[in-house]
């Protein structure tokens, strides 16, 4: 017996896709505003990118080329399975090269390579409400967004400085979009915040469990919140990438043995691999070969 389930193109039915596209259009029209949408059950658990997958499924066409990254890497479980999912249900071409992709679905990173006009970056968002941990009531946070009452966001930054001497928020660092809405950029490291500002690519954010979609259209002002005497700063790394010697990129710390030795390597695997292919070598790049 051979029963093959017959899916609509890109898994979701056309009515659902229309509903999500309407939400996306509204989100683009009001940058940074969280648009509610009726999130569907997806064949994966909440927290694995159900929001991002629904957004991707609604915008993807047969000619699109899809790249999926998880913490910057193309080869982690989440990235591999979402890429395989769309290869199966939409029969689209997939890639790991940032420049070849038309749609990039991401969890927790923005690629190092500058995105171009025409590309779309789809973020998976766990908690879309930046004010949530300070104000648990949804009715109240909606009112605060509506009336532009954002003093509370600075209370969090104040607490950081009071406790740690500097703004210790390193990811999900709140931004103000086009001078109006305060937005959670999803748990990307704050290192990536400047890349959102005036980005040529369209940025879409999908939160499946929380049922919200929001967006940053191309060429939009995105400003990280800060204090006059404690300005916004991104993370700095003492060493370049141990494999490709890249500087000014976001690095992951990898523990090498149980003596506590460690290395810092590019979080963006595609960027690291293309640099290696171009002949760049870091201090530990020969190590794998030696082993």
């Amino acid at each position, binding site marked *: 017996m051979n029963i093959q389930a017959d899916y609509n193109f890109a898994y979701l039915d056309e009515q659902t896709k229309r509903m999500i596209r309407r939400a996306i259009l509204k989100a683009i029209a009001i940058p940074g505003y969280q648009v509610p949408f009726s999130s569907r059950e997806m064949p994966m658990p909440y927290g694995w990118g159900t929001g991002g997958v629904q957004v991707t499924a609604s915008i993807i066409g047969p000619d699109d080329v899809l790249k999926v990254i998880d913490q910057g890497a193309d080869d982690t479980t989440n990235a591999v399975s979402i890429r395989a999912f769309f290869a199966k249900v939409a029969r689209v071409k997939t890639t790991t090269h940032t420049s070849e992709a038309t749609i990039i679905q991401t969890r927790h990173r923005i690629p190092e390579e500058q995105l171009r006009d025409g590309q779309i970056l789809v973020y998976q968002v766990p908690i879309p409400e930046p004010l949530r941990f*300070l104000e648990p009531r949804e009715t109240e946070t909606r*009112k605060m967004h509506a*009336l532009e*009452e954002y*003093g*509370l966001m*600075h*209370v*969090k930054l*104040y*607490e950081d*400085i*009071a*406790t740690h001497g500097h703004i210790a928020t390193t990811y999900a660092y709140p931004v103000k979009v086009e001078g109006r809405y305060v937005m959670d950029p999803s748990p990307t490291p704050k290192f990536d915040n400047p890349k959102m500002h005036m980005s040529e690519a369209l940025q879409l954010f999908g939160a499946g469990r929380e049922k919200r979609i929001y967006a940053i259209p191309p060429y939009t002002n995105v400003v990280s919140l*800060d*204090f*006059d*005497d*404690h300005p916004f700063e991104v993370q700095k790394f003492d060493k370049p990438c141990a494999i490709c010697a890249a500087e000014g990129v976001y690095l992951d710390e990898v523990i090498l043995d149980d003596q506590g030795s460690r290395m810092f390597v590019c979080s963006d695997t595609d960027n690291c691999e293309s640099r290696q292919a171009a002949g760049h070598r870091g201090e530990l790049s020969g190590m794998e070969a030696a082993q």
Partner: protein
Amino acid sequence: MNNQPLLSVNEVSKFYGARIGCRDVSFDLYPGEVLAVVGESGSGKTTLLNCISTRLEPTSGSVMYRMRDETKRDLYQMSEAERRFLMRTDWGFVHQNPADGLRMAVSAGANVGERLMAVGDRHYGNIRETAIDWLGRVEINEDRVDDQPRAFSGGMRQRLQIARNLVTGPRLMFMDEPTGGLDVSVQARLLDLIRGLVRDLGLAAIVVTHDLAVARLLSHRMIVMKDGHVIESGLTDRVLDDPHEPYTQLLVSSILQV
């Protein structure tokens, strides 16, 4: 200038279905004046306070407020954004339970600084300095600035709540049983503090209390409520020393003598 009332309450009524919350309450409040609202529990004191402070829309009647630019505005004709702005700049609200008026999970300094940040202050050093200054004024030691209010005693929490409200220099304070639940010595110190602050800052205040001693100490004028109605009003000393209404007489004679 000061012979214009700051707040005019005109025939405010609030019904909860068929039940009366408060009915046809009218009074004027002048700058620098402290008005006490007394009565037994269930007499409509808190309903009245909430109606005046825009926390609860009255069924009928109006509340006029003289803004800083001297224009008189009906509170319930204002947009919600204006009302909320008024609440966090020109007004203060001291809750009976400090946990309702404080953010228990952020430090004392941030609690005091929140209003400053809400009106656009973006300099950490200045915010912190102002917060420490206000903590000092309400007798909280500077080294407690980074502690959370949950580590504070009841009296300290109440004083912190007052500092948090006063930091933007409001002209009108609402206080709902500010000394409720505190022991008598702490109560006395808090009353002293409130009295001093009200006098120094020229604040107008409406204090809801069931404790006639608190009313005697803090207020210039008082109104007595029973079953949602105002049954007597006048200068505090007059009402307490020479109560006219039988119910007020009962209330005054019920004070425990030690």
